[in-house]
């Protein structure tokens, strides 16, 4: 147990996140040129898009851990999958908030059904909120671990399917920055974007490892209490 509770990784991630967040913020505000069309408000791009991609990464990581759980039947993957989904929901809510602010500044409305990425995050938010309801409504044990894992796997299939659905249903209002011809921005913007993406990923990694350690401690404490009682 002692090895699983050691937390060197989290400290390294936290340090990297702190460094990159400061660097990314400084670069975004003082170095990179302002966008020709949107001006200063375009700066939120360096927060909104990395946070959204990090949320996807968390959901995919959670599904990967869920797959590992079903594959190997090792109980530790349950907590890892749950923690990853938990982080994904936090970053998903941040995406909804920052996207909403950007929409207000750019188009003058807080919410637009034409903005496909935001609608997708709303669907995912509803889906993964139900994940928590499901988890807290089933008795802890291997059955709950299995059910949560299967639901998390449904989530990663739902992401591309919903994406297609919204594309079919929606209008084309959302700016498409990444097209098949590569990113539609200047080299300096792309560099700052990458720094910011690395920063949010490192932040998510640090939070994930920290939360995982906490949950494992909690579990160990509960086991101990049961052993003593």
């Amino acid at each position, binding site marked *: 147990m002692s090895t699983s509770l050691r937390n060197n990784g989290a400290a390294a991630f936290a340090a990297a996140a702190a460094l990159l967040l400061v660097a990314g913020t400084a670069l975004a505000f003082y170095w990179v040129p302002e966008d020709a069309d949107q001006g200063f408000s375009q700066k939120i791009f360096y927060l909104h898009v990395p946070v959204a991609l990090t949320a996807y990464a968390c959901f995919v990581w959670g599904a990967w851990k869920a797959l590992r759980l079903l594959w190997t039947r090792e109980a530790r993957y349950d907590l890892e999958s749950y923690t990853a989904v938990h982080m994904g929901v936090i970053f998903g809510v941040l995406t909804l908030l920052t996207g909403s602010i950007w929409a207000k500044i750019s188009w003058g409305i807080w919410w637009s059904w034409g903005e496909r990425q935001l609608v997708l995050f709303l669907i995912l938010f509803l*889906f993964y909120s139900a994940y928590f309801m*499901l988890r807290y*409504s089933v008795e802890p*044990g291997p*059955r709950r671990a299995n*059910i949560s894992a299967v639901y998390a796997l*449904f989530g990663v299939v739902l992401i591309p*399917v919903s994406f297609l*659905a919204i594309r079919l*249903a929606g209008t084309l209002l959302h700016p498409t920055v990444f097209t098949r011809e590569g990113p539609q921005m200047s080299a300096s913007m792309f560099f700052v974007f990458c720094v910011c993406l690395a920063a949010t990923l490192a932040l998510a990694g640090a939070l994930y490892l920290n939360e995982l350690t906490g949950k494992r401690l909690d579990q160990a404490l509960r086991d101990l209490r049961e052993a003593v009682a």
Partner: protein
Amino acid sequence: MSRYAADVAALARKDVLLELRSRDTLPAMLLFVVSALVVFHFSLPEGSSDVAAAGLLWIAIVFTALLGLSRSFAAEREQRLLDALVLAPCDRSAIWLGKVVSIVVFLALAEAVALPAFALFFRPVGWETVAAVALANLGIAGVGTVLAAMAAASRARELLLPVLFLPLAIPIVVGGVGATVADDPGRYLAFLGLYDGMFAILSWASFEYVVTE
């Protein structure tokens, strides 16, 4: 007929027989879907278009399916039948497939009433709507069976199923409404087929884990 198909047929037959004898779910589904359409007539303001009504048809179908799905594991739960089914010497995915077949049968019966009623009350129903409904049934039953088994294992039971199911039903509604109102229904029908295929594979492969420890 292979062993697997025989298992599926036996399980589906069990569900249909059970329903024919108890008549619990199907009459409720039929009554619900017609009542829902009548309620929708009054919920549409005067002068709203037929296109809006097409959306309501899909709402009616999804909610009727929810009604059926929430009862689909009632017998298994109340009589502790699921433990016995899991112990039976058949592939666990056959339990899923058997359930899907029986739910598709119930849904098709409910829609055999709903679509004519919709045509009578609102606007005529084309072949593309019928095709979309048939494709949607497969997706609803495939995903819904797994989620209903999950909900049956939880404390919240029937309360949980709509919360689990509706986010996953959004793509079905998009495809269904699109196929009903768009000029080129082919794209939407293909999308529904894609949804069915992807979630059928996932549900088929993962159902075993939902009912076992």
